[in-house]
């Protein structure tokens, strides 16, 4: 019979191998899923994973990869800090929306003035918006012990309603012929999050995502605060003896996560999306949770996982148009990945043993 035996130390080898194993298992089961939907599984997998990178039209899709990966990496890096410490911010989607609203609102307030200072100011407003939205669950948790999972999630629905409200009212384009949605920021030079190098997809959000990854790496590996975060997650009691103040950690982790999600929203709304509209949010805040776990809550891992997840988004869109693969199939595919990841993760901390019981 099969049983699990706890390892003294988590296995380093398995820590690297489990994400790969999970991706492999997802490919196999994803292929089966596509086959069940009546598509050739190999063609579908090739369309999703090969064509955007090396296929015929890859020059068109490669920049998209950075555009889609940037918000995922930004949000996931922020989330991973909290997840490490056992602080579960799952309302990144809401912080992303509020960041976009605040940032775009700031930019539109200056319209039609031009000035170099407008975009940096929008960036600050975006981060601040996300930060303040995340402060609601943080302060409620610190002050009243309220569950941050439920509060941050409820605030996603509140943010969605706010988004609908501002795109129909406050931020609506006065010259938009009555259509919902704000002015297009891509046509407003001072507020446009343009590509740093044209045609590469490299906009300011991508640059910020890379900075966030480096910042996250240094914080977790070379800084006392990062050590406290890891300690709190692994041994909360020991952390208290080490002088960690849990309340401060809650505020810090949720605040950073919120600010990064808000930044992601601002860069999206001022760049690729262009305007605040009712259905502006695309679920990045939730997919980033998968990215964070796929990257094993490690900044470098998150960078790779974000690119992989972006690939499934782009490949999924291609498969949707060329093979008629339903959009939901990609969502299932992404969900499956998280499942396999959690399932094989047991191998990092436990050893599989066959045979009977060992005498204690």
């Amino acid at each position, binding site marked *: 019979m099969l049983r*699990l035996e706890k390892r003294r130390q988590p296995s380093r080898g398995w820590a690297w191998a489990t994400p790969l194993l999970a991706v492999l298992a997802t490919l196999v089961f994803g292929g089966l899923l596509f086959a069940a939907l009546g598509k050739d599984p190999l063609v579908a997998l090739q369309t999703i994973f090969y064509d955007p990178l090396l296929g015929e039209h890859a020059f068109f899709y490669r920049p998209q990869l950075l555009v889609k990966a940037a918000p995922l990496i930004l949000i996931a890096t922020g989330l991973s800090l909290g997840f490490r410490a056992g602080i579960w911010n799952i309302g990144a989607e809401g912080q992303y929306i509020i960041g976009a609203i605040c940032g775009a609102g700031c930019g539109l307030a200056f319209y039609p003035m031009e000035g170099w200072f407008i975009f940096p100011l929008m960036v600050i407003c975006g981060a601040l918006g996300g930060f303040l939205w995340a402060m609601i669950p943080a302060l409620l948790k610190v002050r009243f012990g309220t569950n941050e999972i439920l509060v941050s999630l409820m605030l996603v629905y509140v943010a969605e309603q706010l988004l609908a409200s501002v795109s129909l009212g406050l931020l609506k384009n006065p010259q938009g012929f009555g259509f919902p949605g704000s002015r297009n920021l891509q046509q407003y030079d001072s507020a446009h999050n343009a590509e740093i190098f044209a045609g590469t997809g490299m906009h300011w959000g991508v640059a910020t995502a890379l900075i966030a990854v480096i910042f996250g790496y240094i914080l977790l590996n070379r800084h006392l605060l990062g050590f406290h975060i890891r300690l709190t997650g692994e041994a909360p009691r020991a952390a208290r003896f080490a002088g960690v103040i849990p309340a401060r950690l809650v505020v810090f982790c949720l605040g950073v996560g919120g600010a990064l999600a808000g930044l992601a929203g601002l860069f999206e709304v001022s760049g690729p999306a262009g305007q605040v509209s009712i259905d502006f949010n695309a679920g990045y805040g939730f997919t980033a949770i998968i990215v964070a776990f796929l990257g094993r809550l490690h900044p470098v891992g998150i960078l790779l996982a974000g690119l992989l997840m972006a690939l499934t988004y782009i490949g999924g869109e291609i498969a949707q148009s060329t093979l008629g693969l339903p959009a939901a199939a990609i969502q299932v595919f992404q969900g499956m990945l998280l499942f396999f990841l959690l399932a094989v993760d047991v191998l990092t901390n436990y050893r599989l043993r066959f045979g009977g019981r060992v005498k204690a």
Partner: protein
Amino acid sequence: MDLSAINPVLLIASLMVAATPILLAGIGELVTERAGVLNLGVEGMMITGAICGFAAAVITGSPLLGFVAAALGGAMLSLLFAFLTQYALANQVASGLALTLFGLGLSALLGQGYVGIKPPATPRIDIPFLTDLPVVGRILFGHDLMVYFGIALVAAVWAFLRYSRAGLILRAVGESHDAAHALGYKVRRVRVLAIMFGGACAGLGGAYVSLIRVPQWTEGMTAGAGWIALALVVFASWKPWRVLLGAYLFGGVTVLQLNLQAAGLAIPVEYLSMSPYLITILVLVIMSADKSRAPAALGRIFHAAQ
């Protein structure tokens, strides 16, 4: 604005309908949590139940079979969670989130052919004399079967937890899995069963949304009801009857804001629509002062070392 358009009797009657999905999902999650398992996948199981029930009801033409299928669908999905948390010893919060993300995708995939179809109508129970009673008739009688089933389920869970031996074992497992294990109880088996019960109830709740409350299928139609059900359990301090009270309170808020929207209150629709979520947060804040009622082993991983 015309407040007189709001009929209090109809309001209470429709409140009971609005409350039933979260009541069913909430009472299921309560049992799961009393066994010491925090399953954040309620939303995913609800939406899966919603489409399973909808599809089964459309295919067979029987709403009753639809509800059976919904319960099975929810329970099947919850088995994934049970495997992850009880056998692969994965983190319960992460696994629950995975279940929700996966369930939302799966339901969208399953539901593709069912958009825009009307499900077979669920008959209301019409007792000739009683339903015609002036005020009480409309409130107490004349609902569909599931409204009463929900209330009966609350009573059954209460009696089960309080008076039965199995209920005592379940509570013991939830309070201290090590002690329960030492006494020879099968911690894993109890928890898997509790998780499946929670899944089945969430499935029923979801099917109630798609078959009766709305009734049609749209992607993501549960719109956070699963998360409200989770909040409901906290609100109820893990006590069955309080789940009923809480569900009717939330149902009341939902119905009231819908009625105010219809009556054309001067507040924009979006602000009214966010009120149930805001009130949930408010209630969580008030209730979280008292943490003593939470099962002691809630969310902790059990691994029986030899």
